[in-house]
Every structure is written in C-alpha cells, then in structure tokens.
C-alpha cells in the first residue's frame, strides 16, 4: 500500500494561531492512501476531520510534517501551484453541493476545465466533456437547467460530474449524502462505489455509520490524531463499530 501511496501524510500537524500557544487541531498524523483506495474518514466534531480534508484538498497547508500527493511534496508549494494542483489532481464533492446558482448545470461542470493551465481545451471541447460527464451521472437531459431547478440528489450528481472533469487522482467527498434523503444518498453512494470500482481514489468524510461500515477502509480521528485505521469490521469485529466510530 505504502509503496504506491497517492496520499502520504507524515507527521502532519496543524496549529491555528501562534504555533507555540495556538489551537492544535492535528497532531502528528501519519496516513498513507494507496491509488484506488476508498477511505472513510470518521470522527466526532472537532476531531480534525475537516482540517485533514482541507489539507488533503490543498486548501490549507500543514504547520508541521509533510504531505505528498502523487509523490509531490505539496507542503511548501506556493498558492498558485496549490491552485494548479487542486485543479488537475483533486475533485471535490461537498455536502452542500457548492454549485454556482447563476450558472447552468453544464457550466458548473465546465468550471474546473476552464482553469486548466497550458493545455486548456477549447470551449467546444469543454462543453462536450461536461455533457459526457453529466450523461455518465444520468443528467444528460438537465444540461441547461440551473441548480435551483434540480433536486438535492441531482445537484450532488452534478457536483460529482464536476469533480471528475479533469480526471483527478484523488476525489475528496465531504459528507456527500449529508443533505440527501435515503434514496438520493444511496444513488450518490452507488456512483461513488462505481468510481471506486473503476479505480478512482476516494476519501470520504461521513457521519453515517451504515455508510462507514460499507467502506473498505476507515480512518477514525479523535482529538487531532488518527485513533484507528483499517477495515471497519476488522477494527472491532462488528459492523456496529463503524457506527460507533462514525458518531
């Protein structure tokens, strides 16, 4: 696993404010995620999940330690290079979808394609790519709609299509089913399982124990540390543990 790690956090710590007296959110976190893994990130509120996701998503930098994404140490990259990395290597799926309401579904999916450096596709190609992705999540008929005209489940599918726009090495999903009903949540999970089956690397924050229990690997956070790391069943020999961790 560690030999083909797409994500490698080594002794990552995060302190907000003064490093000596500030608020410590992450403490010497060591996590390695191999290419193609589907990892659940669980833990109580304030355990450091969100900060870890921010660091994994190159939205934030660790105070100490190193973070290597696809072999590249991103801890010291400047803001522009972090932006480029987010654009080409990371796909975000947020709990609240984070679609731009003024743009159509297709324009939302095109968004990451417009920020590609160097080999930026033409508008026609970007449109075609967006249409292809939206078709793959079953929204080929909704291209010209605005997010307000879509259901929550559809919005999240748009967000997944957008996350896949640049064929990212890592997909970060922050409670993607948190705002959805059971049926829509299950649809979204099926899409994510499908992506995993297709070889995508996914890290997903979830508070849902049932979902956590279905994941091949769960990293449980507590007080800024990794408290457990492994398959949910193996961790405690019961599916219920997944629920315990997730809570």
């Amino acid at each position, binding site marked *: 696993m560690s030999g083909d790690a797409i994500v490698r956090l080594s002794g990552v710590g995060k302190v907000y404010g003064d490093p000596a007296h500030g608020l410590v959110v992450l403490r010497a976190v060591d996590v390695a995620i191999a290419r193609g893994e589907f990892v659940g990130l669980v833990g109580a509120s304030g355990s450091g999940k969100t900060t870890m996701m*921010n660091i994994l*998503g190159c*939205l*934030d930098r660790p105070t100490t330690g190193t973070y290597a994404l696809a072999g590249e140490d991103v801890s010291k990259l400047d*803001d*522009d290079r972090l*932006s*480029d990395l*987010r*654009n*080409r290597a990371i796909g*975000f799926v*947020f709990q609240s979808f*984070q*679609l*731009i309401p*003024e743009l159509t579904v297709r324009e939302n999916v095109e*968004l*990451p394609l*417009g*920020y*590609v450096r160097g080999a*930026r596709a*033409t*508008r026609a190609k970007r449109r075609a790519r967006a249409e292809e992705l939206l078709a793959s999540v079953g929204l080929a008929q909704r291209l010209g709609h605005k997010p307000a005209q879509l259901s929550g489940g559809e919005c999240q599918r748009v967000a997944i299509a*957008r996350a896949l726009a*640049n064929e990212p090495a890592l997909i970060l999903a922050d409670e993607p089913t948190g705002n959805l009903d059971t049926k829509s949540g299950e649809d979204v999970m099926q899409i994510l399982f499908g992506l995993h089956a297709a070889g995508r690397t996914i890290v997903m924050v979830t508070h849902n124990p049932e979902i956590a229990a279905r994941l091949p690997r769960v990293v449980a956070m507590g007080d800024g540390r990794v408290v457990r790391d492994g398959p949910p069943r193996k961790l405690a020999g019961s599916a219920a543990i997944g629920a315990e961790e997730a809570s």
Partner: protein
Amino acid sequence: MGLDALFDLLRLGFENLLRNKLRSFLTMLGMIFGVGSVIAMLSVGAGARKEILERIQSLGITNIIVNSVKPPAETKTETQAEQRWMDKYGLTFDDRELLDATCPSIDRVLPVNLVKQPVWRGSRRVDASVFGVLPEHLAMFHLEAGRGRVFNELDAVECKQVCLVRQGLVDELQLLEDPIGARVNVGRESFEIVGVLADQAFRSHTQKALAIDGRTQEVYVPYTTSMRTFGTMTFVQKAGSEERTMVELDQMIVVAKSADLVRPTARIIANVLERSHKRKDYEIVVPLELLQQSERTQAVFNAVMLVIAAISLLVGGIGIANIMLATITERTREIGVRRAMGARRRDILLQFLTETATIGVVGGLFGCLFGLAAIRAVVLYTGWQAVIEPHFVIVALAISGGVAILAGLYPARRAAAMDPIGALRYQ
C-alpha cells in the same frame, strides 16, 4: 492568457451585467453622466475651436484692421472754407501713405469709406451701413454674389453708382420685382443694385472687428464712387442741430506679407499712428490676437468642463467600487468554489476586473449616447457649434473602462485575497 480565456472572461462579465439589469444600470449611471460630459466637452470644445478658426479665416490671418474711432474728448475744428464747426478725427490719407512707404512688411493697404447715409426706395427708408470698398476687399472677406454680380475694377475706375446688398435689405425695402437692376437711393444719390450677397449676414464678431455698427444691413459700393459722391464729410441732422464730422479713412485693412509678420507689423502701425495721432482716435484689431484670446477663454472653459467630467467619473467610479464590494460579499461562496476548482488568485482578480471593465465600457457606450443627445440639445438651444470626432468616442470609452478598472481594483483584490476555506463556509 489566450483569446479563448479572454472571451470567456468577457462573456462572464456580460452575463453578470445582464443578470442584475437594474443594479447594473444604476451602477453605470455615474459613468453615463461622466462619459456624456467628456463627449460633450470634447465636442463643444472642438466646435468652439472650429468657430474660432472660421473667425480668423473670415477676418484674414494676415490682416490687421485699423478703425477710426471717435475720441472720447472731442475737439472741434473750424474749417476755413465753411466757417463751421466740424469734428475731425480718425485715420488720414497721410497715414495710409506713410504706412505703405515705411513698413516693408505690409503687402497692401485697403481703404474703407463709411457713408453715413440712409438707404431709400421710394418712401421706404432703411438705416444701413454703406461701405465704399475696393473690389479686392470683396474677395478678401468672401463677399460673393448669390445673385447678379459683384462690382469690378471697371466699375471702380468709372466710378459707377452700383451697389451690392444683402437679401435682408431687399426684403426691408420691399422690392417686389427682381432686385438686380433695381435702383435705390443712398442719401440723395441713386445706385443700381448689381448683386445680392450670398450670405445672410456677417457673424457678430466679424461685424465688431470690421467696425460695422449696430445696423442690420450692409451695402457695398465702389470706394472710388463713394469718395467722389459722398467725400469724407458727413452731415447728420439730429433734433434741430446738425452733426458734422470729417473722417478721411474710416477703416484700413492692412495686409501683412505673411502670418509671421502680423504682430511686428501691428507694432509698427501702432508706433506710426501714435506719433501722428495724439488723441486716441483709432483702434487696431489683430485677428490673430483675437484668436489667441479666444483660445485662452476656451482653455478655461475646457478646464472647467474637464473638472466637472472628472468629478462625474469619480462619483461613477466610487459607485462601481461600492457595488462591486457588495457583489463580492454576495458572491463569496462562488469565489470559494472557483478557488477550490483551481482558480488562481489572479483568475479571480481578472474575473472581477473584467466585470467592472464591462460595466465601465457599457456605461461608456450609454454615456456616448447621452453625450450625443446632450450635444444636440446644447446646439439646439444655444446655437453653439459642436464637432463630434470618432476618436472622442474611443477616448471616452477608454476613460470609462480605465476608471471602472481602477474602481474595481480594490474589490477585485479583496476577492482574490479571500481564503478559499473561509469563502466556502460563508453563509
């Protein structure tokens, strides 16, 4: 940045503009007034410059006009021949000869004789200004016949009693038949109308410079005829008394050899006349100096207009900055999403700058329309001239775009500096 990316930015700018039409329009208002003022200022300024140029053309760039004027403190002179009191003042034939002889920069001197006699047609009387001028005077001041002909050298040599009139005089005298060939009286002398001038009238400034009195009509007769027929003395009866004046030369049009020599020649004329005229009974009008004086006045006017336009643009810019700050707060989450999707700070900066520039340029376009309408109104109600050049529109659009970009710089920088995590969480 590629053309494709630039096009995307512009498209985004226009889409955002159209998304909130009323707000966009209100944001643009300051820019509309500012650009309108700039366009109006440039056009009215150019119109004024054109008018000034026309003035100098109408008066002649190489001309110096010397007028006889009645001095404030009159001195009465008794002529031996008539034993009567007579006012004698103004330019003399000697002055003309002296200037011609002593000043090498003078090309020629054209005399003008003003005949202070009313024009009659039957019982109809019109108080017109009757000028005795040389035929070349007519060409110099663009006095062309619209109908008939102007008088020529032959008429002058033969001292023919012919005259040129304006259409206004024809109307006032109520000449029902063809005026060409009709006869009118100047004082008691009969003159044949040989031509009607093409233009309606001189402009007021030309009238003033040429010392044309307040009378509305002008009549031109050959100089030689006027001298032989009317001479240099004028008798005007007023309320029981008779006013007698003697002016040898009412006016001299001194033509310098070149425009560069106008000022030195004017100085020489002033020096020469100062010696022979102890009383200030003449005035020297230099069209070139009139032009420069007008230009100075115009420069002050332009500066005032420029300040007004600048204030309007400043207010417009502040309005744009204000609205953009509100827009950026409103669109904080969008900024966060774009940053998460890979937008660099520079992309966000450019996006918002393009939006403000779009507001500026579109506002500028509306401002141009407003300016054109304002110019039309100004021309209509004041009679001023205005000249609209295509580059005024380009200048106005560039200024509006520039002001908008400056106004949008701070809000755009603020947007670009946003922390993506905070922006994504913004409620």
